[in-house]
């Protein structure tokens, strides 16, 4: 990765050294090419909402635990006054600058948190049940349709879950816990330990 000074910068994501075991019943990999912006503001503040829309091109989702997207950008609902904006990593700095400029004096806080979390993408039949070895949530229920976002406790740590498609789920964990999460999922998803719930 280059920077303005023409120096080759060393970029190392949390799981850069890991490749998934071939003994897994689902696919698992790190997504490191994604940029993330933590955005705080009041959903009830019309100026805030429209300023954000003017930059993103779409409305921030207001319904709890949902997401919205447009092109390569996504907004995940984290709380009634907090969203996680996803974009291509290389565009994060520019997007943050645009957001900050558009928000101006409006009460808000936008922070680049692209390196704060590691993202693990899980894919395939059985993804939900694999996660249910570490989550108390009923991930096979209708509450977890594609698009759903939920912060939760996973194994013994905090995690953010984003249902991308029926059998594609992204798990966001704080960077320092990436290895732990990787190890937990490697164990939980190993062949021979599959669990299928209410499915034939």
């Amino acid at each position: 990765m280059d920077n303005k000074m023409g120096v080759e910068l060393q970029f190392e994501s949390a799981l850069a050294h890991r490749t998934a075991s071939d003994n897994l019943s689902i696919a698992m990999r790190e997504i490191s090419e994604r940029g993330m912006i933590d955005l705080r503001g009041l959903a009830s503040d019309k100026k805030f909402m429209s300023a954000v829309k003017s930059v993103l091109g779409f409305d921030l989702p207001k319904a709890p635990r949902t997401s919205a997207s447009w092109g390569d950008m996504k907004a995940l609902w984290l709380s009634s006054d907090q969203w996680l904006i996803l974009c291509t990593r290389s565009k994060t700095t520019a997007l943050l600058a645009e957001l900050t400029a558009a928000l101006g004096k409006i009460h808000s806080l936008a922070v680049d948190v692209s390196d704060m979390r590691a993202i693990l993408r899980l894919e395939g039949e059985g993804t939900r049940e694999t996660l249910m070895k570490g989550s108390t949530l009923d991930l096979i229920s209708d509450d977890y349709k594609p698009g759903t976002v939920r912060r939760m406790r996973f194994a013994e740590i905090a995690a953010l879950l984003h249902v991308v498609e029926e059998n594609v789920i992204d798990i966001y964990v704080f960077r320092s816990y990436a290895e732990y999460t990787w190890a937990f999922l490697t164990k939980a998803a190993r062949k021979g330990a599959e669990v299928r719930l209410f499915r034939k």
Partner: protein
Amino acid sequence: MLVVTCPICNASGDETDFHYGGQAHVRRPATADPLNITDEEQRDYLFIRHNPKGLHFERWRCDRGCGKWFHAARDTVTMEFKATYGITELPPVELMKEAKGPWADYFKMRMKEKA
């Protein structure tokens, strides 16, 4: 293991996804008037809590979810959550009426203040 439902994000989860924040409606005297607080008022604020058998009012945080604090009315015998309500709000009127002992006195006082 209780199931708690957050009134802000409407998510239900095990109590381990939440954080129990002790008794509800404890007022911090220093916020109202920092310069005139008796030792007794400060003691009550810091240490004196109700311990009812039955209906109780508590603070909870959607710790692993949306991060918001809220109030809950819970029966300490059956463990049933009777209601959840905003962190700056009083409980539903019928529960204030149902409350017993020190809670009944407290809500009477709050209702009088309101009126």
